[in-house]
C-alpha cells in the first residue's frame, strides 16, 4: 500500500472522529432547543435589549431535581429556584411568609394550619391551591413512592401506614390542615421538616400512578411555582433559568439566572473575571487562602458570614478503652482556640456543643476550657496505656478539617495519647464510622437554628449513631425539647441535653467555620447571606445594576 493510501486511511479516520464529535455537539444544542421555552431563533438573533443575567456558582453538581428524591444541598440550590416552599426560613430561628401567608398551631400543638396566598401561579398559568400542597405531602409520604425525604413527614399523624393515610386536608382552596402524630413544637416542624418540602403541581403529576411518578417526562422540563422557570441544563456544568415575572413576592429585576458548577480553586478567578456574579452561600465558600486577595478586589463585596454549620469529632463509645472519663480528658486537651485563630484565621467561632454561642438556647455552662496539664494529670490517674494507638478516621475533601485533625493529633500526643490519622474518601469514611470501625472520626453538620438538630445522632437505633451509643438518655432528653412549647420549658430540656453531652462526650465539638462569601458589585440586594444555609435564597430581591 503506498503512502498515498496510508494517508487516505488516516484522514478518513480523522474525519470520522470529527464528524462524530460534531454530531455530539449538535445533539447537545438540539436537546437544549427542545427544552428551552424561548423561541429557537434567539440563538441567531442578537437581542436588542441586554438581557440581565445573574450567575451563581456552587462547587459540586446536583444529582437530581426531583425534590423528594435527593438529599444533596447542591440539588436544593436548583430546586429552590424552580419550586416554591411554604415559608422562608431565616438563620435566627424566625421565618417569613412565602406560599403560606400565615401558619398557626392550635393550643395543644396537635394541629397545624397553613393559610396560603391566593396569587401564586404555576409557570403554565394554573393557580397554586391547597390541593397542590396536599398532593405534595401525599407524594412525599407515600410508601409506593418511597421518597428519600419521606421521613420528613414522620411528625404527621397517619404517616407510613399507606399511600392515602396521611392526615392532611384542604378545608378550602387556600387552607391546609396537618394533624401531628403527637404534640410538637411549631418551630421544630418548620425548621427541621419543612425545609425540604417543595410544592409539586397536582394538576400535572396527580394523574400519574404514584409508583411511576419518577418516570414522567415532566421532570425533563419541570413546571414549578418558584422565582425561576427551568430552561435547560448541561449536566454537571450549569442549569439555566428564566425569571418568573409573575412571582407573587416580588417581580425579579433580572431576566436570566444561571447556576454553574465551579471548583473551589477557580471561584476567585471567576469572580474577578466577571464570569460569576455570586457564590451560593453555604455550598460555595472561598477558600481561606484566597480571602485576603478577595477582600482587595474593587469589584467584589466580601462578607465573612457566621455559619450554623459545625465540625465535630465523634468518639466511639463502644470501645472499652474510651470510657467517659477518657472522653472528657480528650475533650479537655483539644486546643480549639488555635483552630479558630490559627487555622481559620479568626473567621469562625469555637464550638463546645451543637448549639451556636449566639443561639438563645446556648448554655454557657458546657464550655470545656482547654487544659492540657489537667488532662495529662487525669490521664495518668486513669491509667491510660501509653502504647495504645487510636485510629483517627478523616475524610478527604475539607482541607481545614484535615488540618484540624493534625492539630488534635498533636494535642493528644502532648498529653500522652498516640493517634494515627487514616484518611479515606467520604463514602468509605461514612461507612466506617457508621459501622463503628474507628476510634475518633471527623464529621461535619450543616446545623440549624433549632437546637434539636443534632439530637437524632444520639438515637441508638438511628443510622447516624456514629458514636455507637446504646443508652437512650441523651436522645430522650433532647427529643423532649421538640415536644414542649414554652421557651423556658424548652430551655430547660436543652440545657440538660447540652450538659449531658459535656459529661458523656459522644462528640467533641470543634468549631463553626464562617462561610467566606463574596459577590460582584454588579448585583445588589444580596444580604442576609446566613439565611441561605436554610436552603432558601431570596433571589427575587436581587437587582442587576
Amino acid at each position, binding site marked *: 500500500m503506498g503512502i498515498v493510501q496510508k494517508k487516505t486511511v488516516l484522514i478518513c479516520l480523522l474525519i470520522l472522529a470529527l464528524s462524530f464529535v460534531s454530531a455530539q455537539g449538535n445533539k447537545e444544542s438540539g436537546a437544549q432547543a427542545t427544552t428551552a421555552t424561548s423561541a429557537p431563533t434567539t440563538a441567531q438573533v442578537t437581542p436588542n435589549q441586554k438581557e440581565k443575567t445573574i450567575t451563581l456558582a456552587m462547587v459540586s453538581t446536583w444529582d437530581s431535581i426531583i425534590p423528594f428524591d435527593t438529599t444533596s444541598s447542591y440539588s436544593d440550590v436548583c430546586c429552590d429556584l424552580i419550586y416554591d416552599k411554604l415559608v422562608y426560613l431565616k438563620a435566627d430561628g424566625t421565618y417569613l411568609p412565602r406560599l403560606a401567608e400565615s401558619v398557626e398551631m392550635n393550643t395543644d400543638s396537635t394541629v397545624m394550619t397553613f393559610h396560603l396566598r391566593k396569587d401564586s401561579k404555576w409557570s403554565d398559568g394554573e393557580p397554586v391551591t391547597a390541593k397542590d400542597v396536599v398532593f405534595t405531602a401525599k407524594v412525599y409520604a407515600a410508601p409506593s413512592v418511597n421518597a428519600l425525604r419521606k421521613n420528613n413527614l414522620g411528625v404527621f399523624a397517619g404517616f407510613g401506614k399507606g399511600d392515602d393515610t396521611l392526615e392532611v386536608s384542604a378545608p378550602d382552596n387556600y387552607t391546609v390542615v396537618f394533624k401531628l402524630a403527637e404534640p410538637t413544637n411549631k418551630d421544630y416542624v418548620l425548621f427541621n421538616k419543612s425545609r425540604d418540602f417543595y410544592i409539586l403541581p397536582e394538576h400535572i403529576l396527580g394523574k400519574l400512578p404514584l409508583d411511576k411518578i419518577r418516570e414522567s417526562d415532566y421532570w425533563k422540563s419541570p413546571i414549578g411555582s418558584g422565582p425561576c422557570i427551568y430552561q435547560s441544563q448541561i449536566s454537571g456544568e450549569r442549569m439555566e433559568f428564566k425569571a418568573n415575572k409573575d412571582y407573587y413576592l416580588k417581580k425579579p429585576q433580572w431576566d436570566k439566572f444561571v447556576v454553574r458548577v465551579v471548583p473551589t480553586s477557580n471561584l476567585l478567578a471567576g469572580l474577578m473575571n466577571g464570569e460569576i456574579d455570586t457564590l451560593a452561600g453555604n455550598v460555595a465558600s472561598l477558600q481561606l487562602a484566597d480571602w485576603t*486577595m478577595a477582600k482587595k478586589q474593587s469589584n467584589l463585596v466580601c462578607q465573612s458570614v457566621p455559619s450554623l454549620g459545625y465540625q465535630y469529632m465523634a468518639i466511639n463509645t463502644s470501645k472499652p478503652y474510651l470510657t467517659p472519663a477518657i472522653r472528657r480528658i480528650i475533650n479537655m486537651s483539644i486546643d480549639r482556640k488555635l483552630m479558630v485563630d490559627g487555622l481559620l484565621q479568626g473567621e469562625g467561632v469555637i464550638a463546645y456543643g451543637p448549639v451556636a454561642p449566639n443561639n438563645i438556647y446556648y448554655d454557657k455552662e458546657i464550655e470545656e476550657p482547654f487544659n492540657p496539664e489537667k488532662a495529662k494529670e487525669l490521664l495518668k490517674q486513669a491509667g491510660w496505656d501509653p502504647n495504645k494507638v487510636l485510629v483517627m478516621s478523616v475524610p478527604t475533601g475539607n482541607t481545614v478539617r484535615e488540618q484540624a485533625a493534625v492539630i488534635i*493529633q498533636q494535642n493528644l500526643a502532648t498529653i500522652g495519647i498516640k493517634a494515627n*490519622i487514616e484518611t479515606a474518601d467520604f463514602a468509605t469514611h461514612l461507612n466506617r464510622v457508621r459501622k463503628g470501625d474507628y476510634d475518633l472520626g471527623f464529621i461535619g453538620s450543616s446545623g440549624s437554628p433549632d437546637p434539636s438538630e443534632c439530637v437524632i445522632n444520639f438515637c441508638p437505633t438511628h443510622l447516624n449513631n456514629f458514636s455507637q451509643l446504646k443508652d437512650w438518655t441523651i436522645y430522650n432528653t433532647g427529643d423532649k425539647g421538640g415536644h414542649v412549647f414554652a421557651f423556658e420549658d424548652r430551655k430547660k430540656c436543652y440545657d440538660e441535653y447540652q450538659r449531658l453531652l459535656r459529661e458523656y462526650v459522644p462528640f467533641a465539638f470543634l468549631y463553626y467555620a464562617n462561610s467566606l462569601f463574596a459577590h460582584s458589585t454588579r448585583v445588589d440586594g444580596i444580604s442576609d447571606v446566613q439565611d441561605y444555609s436554610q436552603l432558601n435564597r431570596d433571589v427575587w430581591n436581587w437587582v442587576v445594576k
Partner: protein
Amino acid sequence: MTKKQAIKGSYFQDVKQRFLHHKLAVFALAFLTMEVILVVFLPRLMHLDPYSLDVMAFGAAPSAKHLLGTDDVGRDMFSRLVFGGRISLTVGICSAIISLMVGVPLGLLAGYYRGPFEMIVMRLSDIFMSFPSMILILVLASVLGQSVATITVVIGVLGWPEFARLIYASTLSVREKDYVESAKAIGTRNGTVLLRYILPNASAPVIIAFTFRTAQAIITESSLSFLGLGVQPPVASWGNILYYAQSISVLSNKVWMWLPAGMLLIFTVLCINFLGDGVRDALDTKMSI
C-alpha cells in the same frame, strides 16, 4: 584475557565512553545522585521534622528558624520538601520498575512466539488499559489503607501495558531482521536469541519509556493528590505540597510554599529524562563516539 572477555570488556567500555560523551546525561546523573544522597542523609544531619506543628507560625514566610517558611498548620516546609523528595522519588522509581518487570517479559514473549501467547498478552494489556484506574486505586486504598505502598503498587501495576506494547512492536520488527534469521538458522536456542539478539535491539524505546514512566509516575502521584487519592498529609510528597498552590493568592503571594517543590519536581524529571537519553545513546551500537 580470552577472546570472550576481550569482546565483553570493550562493549561495556564503549557504552561507558558513549555515555560520558553525553554531557547533559552526566550532569543529570550527578544531580540525581546528589539529590538522592541529600534526601537520605539530610534529615538526620539537620534534625528535620516535617510533622510537628509550630503553633506560633501558621503560614509563615521564610525565616531563620524555618528556611522555607511553614504551611497552613505550622509544619516546616523545608523538612517537608526533603521528606517529600524521598516519597516522590520512591514512588516514581519503584512503580516504573514494577511496570518494567511485568511488561517487558510479557511483551517480548508475545512478540517473539506470537500465536496464542500473543493473543493472551495483548488482550490482557487491553484489559488493563481500559480498566478505570480510579476504581483500582480507590478499592486498594480502602482495603490496604491510603499509603505510599498502595499508590506505588497501583501506579506500577497499571503501567505495564505501555512497556509490553512497546517492546511487542519493536520485537515484531526486529525478529524479521536478517541477523535474527541467521542466528536461528545456525541453531541458536530461542532463549539466547531473545536475550542477546532481540532484547538489546528492541530495548531502546523501552528505555526512553522507562524514564518517562518514572517521571509520569511522579506526576500521576501529584494528580492523585489533587483528587484527594494520592499520598495524604501528614505524609509529605512533592505532589501534595503542590496541592496547596490551588489558590490564586498562594500562586502569586506565597511563592515559597509551592515554588521549591515545583522546581525540584521539574528538575528531577528533567534529569531523569536526560539520563535516559544518555543511556539510550550509549547503548546504540551504531552511534559513533
